[in-house]
C-alpha cells in the first residue's frame, strides 16, 4: 500500500478502508452482543422491581389493595393498558375477594423547580381523594420535599372533596390550594407554610387529573366494582 508520493509525508502505510469498516463492524457487533446479553439477563429483575415499586406506591394511596389493574385514559376514554397507548395511567386496586377498594391515578403540576409528579387515591364511596404520594420531584430539600411527609398537609387528603357537578361532566368545585391556615371548604388544600408553590403543584396536579378522569370513570364504576379474584 505504499504509494511513492506518500513516503515523504509519513512512514506508516495507508490502512485500506475495508479494514477500517471491518474493525468498526466487529467492535460494534461485539458491543451489541454484550449489551443484548446484559439486557436479557437484567430484564426480568427490572420488570419485577418496577412492578413492586408501582405496587408499593398504589398500596400507599389505596390501603387494602392486594391486586392492581391498570387502565390508560386517552382521548376521553379508558383503554386497557398496552405499550402503544400513551396517556394518564389509572390503577384499580382490588382486595383479596376482588372488591374494588379504590382508584389511584397519576397527576403532575409545576412546582418550584420542576414538575411534581404524584399518585393520588380516589375513593368512589365518598367521592373524595383519600391520599396521595409524591412519585418524582426536584423541590427544594427542607421545604418542598416534605409534601407527603408533613402530617398537617397530609390531613388535607383524608377526605378532599372532588364530587362531580349535576351534569356529571366536571368537578362541582375546583380543587384549589389556599394559603396556610385559611382552609374553609372541603375541596380546599391548606398549603404548607413556606412551601406554597410546591403545595399548589399538588393541588393543581389533582385538579387537572381528576377533572379529566372522573367524568369518564364515574359512569363506568359499576363495571369495575367487582372482578374475579
Amino acid at each position, binding site marked *: 500500500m505504499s504509494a511513492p508520493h506518500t513516503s515523504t509525508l509519513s512512514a506508516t502505510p495507508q490502512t485500506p478502508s475495508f479494514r477500517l469498516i471491518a474493525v468498526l463492524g466487529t467492535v460494534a457487533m461485539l458491543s451489541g452482543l454484550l*449489551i443484548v446479553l446484559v439486557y436479557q439477563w437484567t430484564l426480568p429483575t427490572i420488570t419485577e422491581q418496577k412492578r413492586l415499586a408501582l405496587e408499593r406506591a398504589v398500596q400507599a394511596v389505596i390501603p387494602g389493595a392486594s391486586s392492581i389493574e391498570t387502565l390508560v385514559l386517552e382521548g376521553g376514554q379508558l383503554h386497557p393498558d398496552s405499550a402503544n397507548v400513551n396517556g394518564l395511567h389509572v390503577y384499580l386496586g382490588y382486595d383479596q375477594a376482588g372488591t374494588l377498594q379504590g382508584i389511584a391515578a397519576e397527576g*403532575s403540576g*409545576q412546582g*418550584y423547580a*420542576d414538575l411534581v409528579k404524584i399518585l393520588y387515591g380516589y375513593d368512589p364511596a365518598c367521592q373524595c381523594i383519600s391520599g396521595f404520594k409524591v412519585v418524582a420531584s426536584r423541590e427544594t430539600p427542607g421545604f418542598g420535599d416534605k409534601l407527603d411527609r408533613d402530617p398537617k398537609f397530609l390531613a388535607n387528603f383524608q377526605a378532599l372533596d372532588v364530587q362531580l357537578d349535576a351534569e356529571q361532566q366536571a368537578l362541582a368545585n375546583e380543587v384549589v390550594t389556599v394559603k396556610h391556615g385559611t382552609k374553609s371548604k372541603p375541596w380546599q388544600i391548606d398549603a404548607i407554610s413556606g412551601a406554597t408553590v410546591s403545595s399548589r*403543584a399538588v393541588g393543581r396536579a389533582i385538579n387537572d387529573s381528576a377533572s379529566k378522569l372522573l367524568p369518564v370513570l364515574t359512569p363506568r364504576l359499576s363495571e369495575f366494582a367487582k372482578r374475579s379474584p
Partner: protein
Amino acid sequence: MQGESLSFIFLNAAIINNFVLAMFLGICPFLGVSAKLKTAGSMGAATLLVMLISSACAYGLNYLLVEFELEFLRLISYIAVIASSVQLVEMVMKRFSPALFRALGIFLPLITTNCAILGVALFQTTHEFNLVQSLVYSFGAGVGFTIALVLMAGLREKLELSDVPTVSSGLVMSLMLAGLLSLSFMGFAGLGGH
C-alpha cells in the same frame, strides 16, 4: 407531558433549570472556554446549533428505536448521532460559510464531548416530548448554556483586573464565581409555579 406549553418548556430549560448552573451539564466548556467574552459567545452559538440538529435527529432515532423495540441501543446510537451531526455541521459550514467556520470551527470538535448535548437528547426522551417540544427544549437549553457562558466570561474578564491571592486563583476562583451565579439563578425557581 402533553400539558406543558411551549413557552414554559423554553423558560424551564433556559432559566429555571439552567443546564449549566442547575443541572451541571456542560461544565467542562463552561470552565474552559469562558475566559473571553467573544469566544464564549461563539462557543454558545455553535453549541446551540449542534443541540438543535442532534435533538431533531435524536427524536427521529428514538421513534425508530421504539418502533423496533430496540431501546437498549439508545445510548450508543445517540452518541453516534451527535458525533456525526458535529461532523456534518463542520462540513456544511466549511462549504457554505467559510467566515462562520473560521469563527466557530475550532469549537466544534470540543462539542462532541459536551454532556449538555447528550443531556438534551436523553432528557427529551424521558420527558416524552414531541418533535416541536423537543426542538423548543433544545433551543432553550442552548440559550441557557450561552447565557451562563457569557455571564461567566464577563465576570472573569472583570476579575483579571482585580487582585486575587495566588492560592485561590484560576479554577478555584472560577468555581466560586460559578457558585455565586448558580445561587442567583436559584432566584428564578418558582417562575412557573403560580
